[in-house]
């Protein structure tokens, strides 16, 4: 029966043991894509969804209309936060492998997304992140020790032990609570942005999903609402090629770029080199300005590569070539920005190494501090009675009586 099937099953270009092949990626040379005015009509800028906005060239220079012309300080800020994201991830991964936290997810290879976009947004803009946007939380002021305490579910955990590691949130930093359900945050971002417009404020919202999540209904609900009401929102698709073991072709990424998903609704799409810090910043600022001035939503596809496993529970050697990342034509965002800064005379290998050392020390100090608030094996411990808090604004009687009963059982009564 299988031999007769005419069904098309998408396949990645390489599986374990095979030579990585990224020939399917459409690339554009740095500086080759024009930068339209922010009030351009969607129909006039449809080509942005098919090209690839790039600023950093092979020779490490910055080229073209999308170059934000950062000074040395801005470049160093970007590099520092991307590096911190990576150093933090490396340490937390190791900590999970030692059995000291239950779970972790790295953003390895995707750090430009959170950091460059974090820098392009204003503090009053609201972010609705996915689970790989830890860089946003860092950039928006969540202390490393607080992120670690969340991963430890200890007495300083912002979620009071209620969430899996990495599901951070910050009310003061305007980053929404991470959900484990994929894509649910997309319509929230649109609703938040609609409210901002209704109130006459100029804050915008931004949200992030992966390539795989574009297949979820919430993705399409969000795009429809964003288009209908011209909500001031940036909708990002982080195309890191892999949704656990499912390659982006299974979300129809082989058919047409994810950036083009909104065109049928009149939402402009920009396909961006997600590992090009300058391009990501510039495209995001363009979309933010457009939204802020009443131009409505923009869909940004950030083409990148998931450098590590999906999570600590994943083993990518089972489904993709081990060395695939090394062949990824868009490289590593940190390395590319570093080489650009060196080429510009703002940076050196020695300064880079010393910055990495400094950040590692910072992360180590934070981990030391975090453990003081409790670990998986040693106290202090969260009070289990708190698990009944915040289900409702005020606990109804059934929760109060269950809290009492739980404590009685714990006391052996």
């Amino acid at each position, binding site marked *: 029966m299988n031999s007769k099937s005419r069904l098309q099953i998408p396949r990645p270009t390489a599986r374990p043991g095979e030579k990585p092949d990224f020939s399917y990626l459409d690339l554009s040379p740095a500086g080759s894509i024009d930068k339209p005015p922010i009030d351009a009509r969607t129909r006039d800028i449809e080509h942005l969804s098919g090209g690839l906005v790039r600023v950093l060239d092979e020779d490490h220079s910055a080229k073209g209309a999308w170059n934000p012309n950062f000074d040395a300080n801005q470049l160093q800020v970007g590099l520092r936060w991307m590096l911190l994201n990576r150093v933090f991830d490396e340490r937390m991964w190791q900590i999970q492998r030692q059995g000291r936290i239950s779970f972790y997810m790295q953003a390895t290879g995707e750090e430009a997304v959170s950091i460059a976009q974090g820098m392009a947004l204003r503090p009053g803009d609201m972010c609705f992140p996915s689970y790989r946007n830890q860089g946003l939380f860092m950039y928006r002021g969540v202390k490393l020790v607080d992120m670690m305490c969340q991963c430890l579910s200890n007495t300083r955990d912002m979620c009071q032990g209620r969430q899996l590691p990495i599901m951070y949130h910050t009310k003061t930093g305007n980053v*929404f*609570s991470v959900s484990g359900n994929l894509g649910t945050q997309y*319509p929230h971002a649109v609703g938040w942005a609609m409210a901002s417009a209704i*109130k006459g404020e100029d804050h915008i919202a931004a949200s992030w999903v992966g390539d795989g999540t574009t297949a979820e209904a*919430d993705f399409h609900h969000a795009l*429809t609402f964003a288009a209908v009401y011209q909500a001031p929102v940036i909708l990002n698709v982080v195309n890191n090629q892999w949704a656990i073991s499912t390659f982006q072709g299974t979300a129809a990424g082989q058919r047409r770029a994810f950036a083009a998903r909104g065109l049928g609704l009149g939402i402009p799409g920009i396909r961006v080199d997600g590992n090009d810090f300058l391009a990501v910043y510039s495209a995001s600022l363009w979309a933010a300005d457009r939204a802020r001035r009443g131009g409505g939503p923009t869909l940004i596809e950030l083409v990148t590569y998931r450098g590590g496993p999906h999570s600590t529970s994943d083993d990518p050697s089972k489904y993709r070539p081990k060395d695939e990342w090394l062949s990824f034509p868009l490289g590593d965002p940190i390395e590319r920005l570093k080489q650009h800064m060196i080429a510009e005379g703002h940076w050196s290998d020695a300064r880079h190494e010393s910055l990495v050392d400094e950040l590692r020390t910072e992360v180590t100090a934070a981990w030391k501090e975090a453990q003081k608030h409790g670990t998986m094996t040693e106290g202090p411990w969260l009070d289990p009675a708190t698990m009944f*808090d915040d289900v409702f604004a005020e606990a109804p009687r*059934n929760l109060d009586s269950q809290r009492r009963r739980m404590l009685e059982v714990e006391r052996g009564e």
Partner: protein
Amino acid sequence: MAQMNMIEAIRSAHDVMMDRDSSVVVLGEDVGYFGGVFRCTDGLQRKYGEHRVIDAPISEGGIIGAAIGMGVNGLRPVAEIQFADYIYPGFDQIVSELARLRYRSSGDFFSPVTIRTPCGGGIRGGQTHSQSPEGIFTHVTGIKTVMPSNPYDAKGLLIAAIESDDPVVFFEPKRIYNGPFDGDPEKPAVSWGSHPKGEVPEGYYTVPLGQAEIARAGEELTIITYGTLVHVAIAAAEATGVDCEVVDVRTLSPLDVATLADSVKKTGRCLIAHEATRFSGYGAELAATIQKECFYQLEAPISRVAGWDTPYPHAFEWQYFPGLKRMSAGIRRVMEAE
């Protein structure tokens, strides 16, 4: 005091709250220019403008998802889902997001969304316009579930729901929008015009969430029910001559256990009635609760009258619906048990 039907009472609740609180917005399919397929939002867009009474795309998941985001940004959204039968595309947003947002963020984020949706049968609506899915929602902690049985409660409970910082799913039994229904489809329709609960203040008042009400006082048997079946239960008490106490649950979750249990302790007999299917239905939770609270006062097994465990059958509505005959049989069953 004005005489209102349930539609007018619900509309008045919106009007009162939109007037008092500029953060209250309404969204849903056909709610704006047209005023809703059941007219519950009629005139609101003309009065409060199209930025506060928003016609939405046919996308229940989008309506609820967007409402959550609006709530996080300081608005107080009232989302209408045109029929409860259509709420399922938004179910993940309700269960995984709306119900748990406060909990998972330790109270840092919450979204005070009220979801209104017409439910229930008796209107020749077939399986896509007659469902009573309240038990699916009462099983979800973090949301409050409400179903009024009359215009006065509908307005007071809806205002309380809109004011609540917790999310509320507000079920409106559409069979009684225009008048109470005693479960006998052969009788002429009755209006709310002469019903005491059709007297509704025009201004602001609340009926607190979480409080049941004795709809008919009695001594021999307690019928615990809500929505349309409150009226069926009262009619069945008269028809059977059994002195039933009818308890209108009103807020299904959180449940007012004390009012229910006090009544059953007094009568010693308990019948539970709902339109929704029986198996794993909300009545099972009521039965378990009453059994625990009133075991030593019970003189007969707790019994249930509910929709049969089939999809809602269009042509056999009156065999399916727990009307006067089935309710009366249920009363006799509990009275005859030793």
